């Protein structure tokens, strides 16, 4: 699997994502600086990491979404290259217009950092094929701006099209309809607030996140 992890100033989960990808695929991903204007050829995955790019100035993910590399990411996404955005990466993908909706300050105003239960809603995508629809998994969250919002028509549409990948099985941040992860219309872009890269091996206490990366590997190697 040939993968790239984007590197923005301020992000703190880029190496965690790189480790997760390497653990599952045995290949080191390319670390791609935000000022790059083109991507390496033949990428199977572009990963947009979590963690306060640009200090979350203006809005979470707003600056990173307008960085030069994101224009190349948008082109690649349009060609069907899988793009995974975790936490701040999810915020970046909504700000870039690659995913619908927006992520606002948590309804409870507090930073939430703990394991949460999620329900797998869509097990058909490249990211979720190793899960079963309706299954409950546990993946940690660590965010201040995870309150997913969109207008009612958009929420109805993404639910109707099966684009809600994961839903919180418990109250976490006030997200509309409990949405924790969303797919784009083609199914090759996923944004989610929980951090699957933090639960990939027994030493992490759980490995529920590992199957996301295994599913991706299986899909791109098929």
């Amino acid at each position, binding site marked *: 699997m040939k993968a790239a992890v984007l590197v923005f100033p301020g992000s703190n989960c880029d190496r965690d994502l790189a480790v997760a990808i390497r653990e599952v695929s045995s290949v080191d991903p390319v670390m791609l600086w935000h000022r790059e204007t083109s991507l390496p050829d033949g990428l199977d995955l572009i990963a947009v990491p979590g963690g306060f790019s640009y200090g979350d100035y*203006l*809005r979470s993910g*707003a600056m990173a979404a*307008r960085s030069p590399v994101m224009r190349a990411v948008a082109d690649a996404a349009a060609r069907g290259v899988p793009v995974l955005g975790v936490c701040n990466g999810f915020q970046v993908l*909504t*700000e870039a217009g690659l995913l619908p*909706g*927006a992520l*606002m*300050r*948590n*309804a*409870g*105003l507090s930073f939430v950092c703990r394991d949460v239960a999620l329900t797998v809603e869509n097990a058909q995508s490249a990211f979720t094929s190793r899960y079963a629809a309706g299954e409950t998994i546990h993946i940690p969250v660590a965010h201040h701006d995870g*309150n997913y*919002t*969109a*207008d009612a028509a958009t929420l109805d549409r993404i639910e109707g099209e099966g684009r809600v990948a994961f839903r919180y099985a418990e109250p976490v941040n*006030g997200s509309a309809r409990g949405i924790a992860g969303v797919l784009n219309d083609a199914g090759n872009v996923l944004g989610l607030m929980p951090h699957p890269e933090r639960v990939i091996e027994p030493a992490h206490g759980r490995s529920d996140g590992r199957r996301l990366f295994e599913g991706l590997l299986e899909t791109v190697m098929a």
Partner: protein
Amino acid sequence: MKARIYVTLKNGVLDPQGKAVHHALDGLGFAGVADVRVGKLIELELADGTSPEDIDGMCRKLLANTVIENYRIEQVEP
């Protein structure tokens, strides 16, 4: 020339910061505050002759997220 951009959350979008400020005002004993919404003010120092279209473009492309926010432009002559 100068422009001031006021960015506010759209009506109906939950504003937890506004709610928290409202609570604090209540706690200080200021009765009669019906609602509080928190927005932001962005001041731009611009080359003379910058077109209104350009300023509007800055708002739409970066300064406001039009999924959740409205913006209002106020041009200030020097």
